[in-house]
């Protein structure tokens, strides 16, 4: 492959964009895992649901696009909260594997629910029907062509992450979240309403997934009930790479994974078919040799 500087820069831009989207979804995974040690398999499906909410907000309820997006993000948050209340809360004291199995069940449930409610035919999430055409305009920066959408997505991603870091580190609930992730039992003894805080964590993580879903659909305008599975899995891998349980880690992992995927396909186009293998191999190597990820804290079992 002839890798010239412009082509490299083009791929860099692509990588950053994909990475940003992975990062948004990965944060939700990471937050939930940090608190409950639960791989929330249904996270990818909340991502899908959020996109559908936005789609129907615009097409069925005729909301302006920005309002529909905000409502959809809130909707995804509420959905996440409900999922926790219904499916995970009753299993708080059960073996961790039980929650994992239930999460898998929840994922299948949400997918089939979407098939029943929204139908199996993919919906098109494209301008001008859903959002203004302005976003899909191309900007020429030197030799690199970038869509305005890219800046929008990166901007929103950055904004959401800044908000999240403020929330986790500067507010009372954020403090409670961090306390729970260190020691759930002690935090409960301190008089913190653990269930509420966990519920809020789910809500925020899910809202971010919803936002990620909408941005994803703006970039790849194809909405279907199964759209959440692969990005969900990839985001989980990103969270593990960065160090699961850590918000900064999830961001770092997301950007890294997005970049690696794009660059590998760019440098070795023959191996595009193996693209997902790379992600899984990275996952396995990280889990084997540094399960705490790049930024994660070390977890050890006491004998």
């Amino acid at each position, binding site marked *: 492959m002839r890798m010239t500087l412009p082509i490299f820069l083009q791929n860099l831009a692509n990588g950053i964009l994909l990475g940003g989207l992975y990062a948004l979804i990965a944060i939700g995974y990471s937050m939930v895992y940090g608190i409950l040690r639960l791989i929330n398999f249904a996270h990818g499906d909340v991502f899908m649901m959020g996109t559908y909410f936005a789609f129907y907000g615009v097409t069925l309820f005729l909301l302006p696009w920005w309002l529909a997006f905000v409502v959809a993000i809130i909707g995804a948050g509420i959905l996440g909260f409900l999922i926790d209340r219904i499916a995970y809360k009753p299993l708080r004291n059960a073996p961790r594997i039980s929650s994992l199995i239930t999460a898998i069940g929840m994922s299948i449930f949400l997918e089939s629910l979407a098939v029943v409610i929204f139908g*199996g*035919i*993919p919906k098109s999430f494209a301008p001008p029907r859903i959002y203004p055409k302005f976003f899909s305009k191309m900007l020429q920066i030197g030799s690199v*062509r970038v869509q305005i959408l890219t800046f929008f997505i990166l901007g929103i991603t950055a904004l959401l992450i800044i908000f999240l870091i403020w929330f986790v580190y500067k507010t009372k609930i954020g403090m409670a979240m961090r306390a729970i992730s260190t020691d759930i039992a002690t935090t409960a003894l301190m008089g913190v309403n653990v269930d509420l805080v966990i519920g809020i964590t789910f809500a925020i993580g899910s809202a971010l997934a919803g936002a990620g879903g909408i941005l994803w659909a703006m970039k790849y305008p*194809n909405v279907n009930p199964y759209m959440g599975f692969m990005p969900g899995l990839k985001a989980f891998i990103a969270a593990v790479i960065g160090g699961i349980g850590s918000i900064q880690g999830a961001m770092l992992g997301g950007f890294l994974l997005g970049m690696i995927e794009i660059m590998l396909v760019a440098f070795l186009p023959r191996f595009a078919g193996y693209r997902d293998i790379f992600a899984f191999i990275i996952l396995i190597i990280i889990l084997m040799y540094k399960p705490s990820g790049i930024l994660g804290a070390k977890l050890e079992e006491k004998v």
Partner: protein
Amino acid sequence: MRKMTFLVFTLIVLLSIVSIAAETIKIAAVLPLTGAVAAYGQQGKQGILLANEMFPEVLGKKIEVVFIDTKSEKAETANAVARAIDYEKVNAIIGELISGNSLAGSAVADKKKIPMVTPASTNPLVTQGKKYMFRVCFIDPFQGEIAAKFAYENLGARNVVIFTDIEQDYCVGLANFFKKTFTALGGTIYEEYYRTGDQDFSAQLTDALSRNPDILYVPGYYTEIALIARQARQFGFYGPILAGDGAEAQQLIEIGGDAVNDVYYTTHYHPDAAQTEIASVFIEKFQEKYGERPSAMSALNFDAYLIIYDAIKRAGSDDPEAIAQALRETKEFKGVTGVIKMGPDGNPIKSVVINKVENGEFKFVTVVNP
């Protein structure tokens, strides 16, 4: 105790479900209504429902279509066909759409000697060696060959990049047959690969466009074609994109927007090239019923129903053996997707239509006869 009450309640609900039955000629439509390729199943269902509405009766009996979902899975397809035959006692079967699934299903139908017509499984193996398996679509080698000739002769292409969806046997097959013919004609080929569900093609496109292709050949399904077209235009490729019949769906234009202008594709029919009367009626009624243009998938499923209907009428009997015999003897069947003469092995001999997208509409380009 609460658990007990709950269980009893569930049992009552389940037991009070009663299915409805009636005296009719039964045709089963074994389709992927959910799962990975639900979109095709749903489009197919639209076509069959319309056909059933337009031609509800034959030999004085009502035709009842039983839709059976396959979840886009092989095992489910095989079970669904067995269920259709033994439990629903159908006289003929329409389905499946995916070649691999049709194969699993046709093994069952062939053994039970129930005629089965697949609307869209284009792999040659589907009908091979089976006496009761038919199709209304053409097979991959033919379509790939026509596409290659069209690219070389009509579009004047000499340098083509093929985007192969390595997860779809349909796509790999088409790409393969295209490659054979095109290189034989003297053109050069470069290949890129992707997988169903991929959303980002920027890496492949950056590589592909650095080879300055005249056209891109993307014999995949419409979602990916639309995304590839969008991203290709963003990267500054404005040449023609050639595709197969998997491109034909309203979603191609919805997802692709302006980017899919100049997408050519080989397919089964076009309203403007309507070789049959039924085609224009079909399009009109379809738009009336669903408010959108019919896709090739709907048209092919419509034809699958219609060819069975025609066979029953000609056989003068709803006996599966007689229907199968009549299907084998089909000569001048006028369907929506063209005039079909059933060849040996249950493969139809029919013409290929080439369409293109222009300003958000599907336009007829040319028709190639076998």
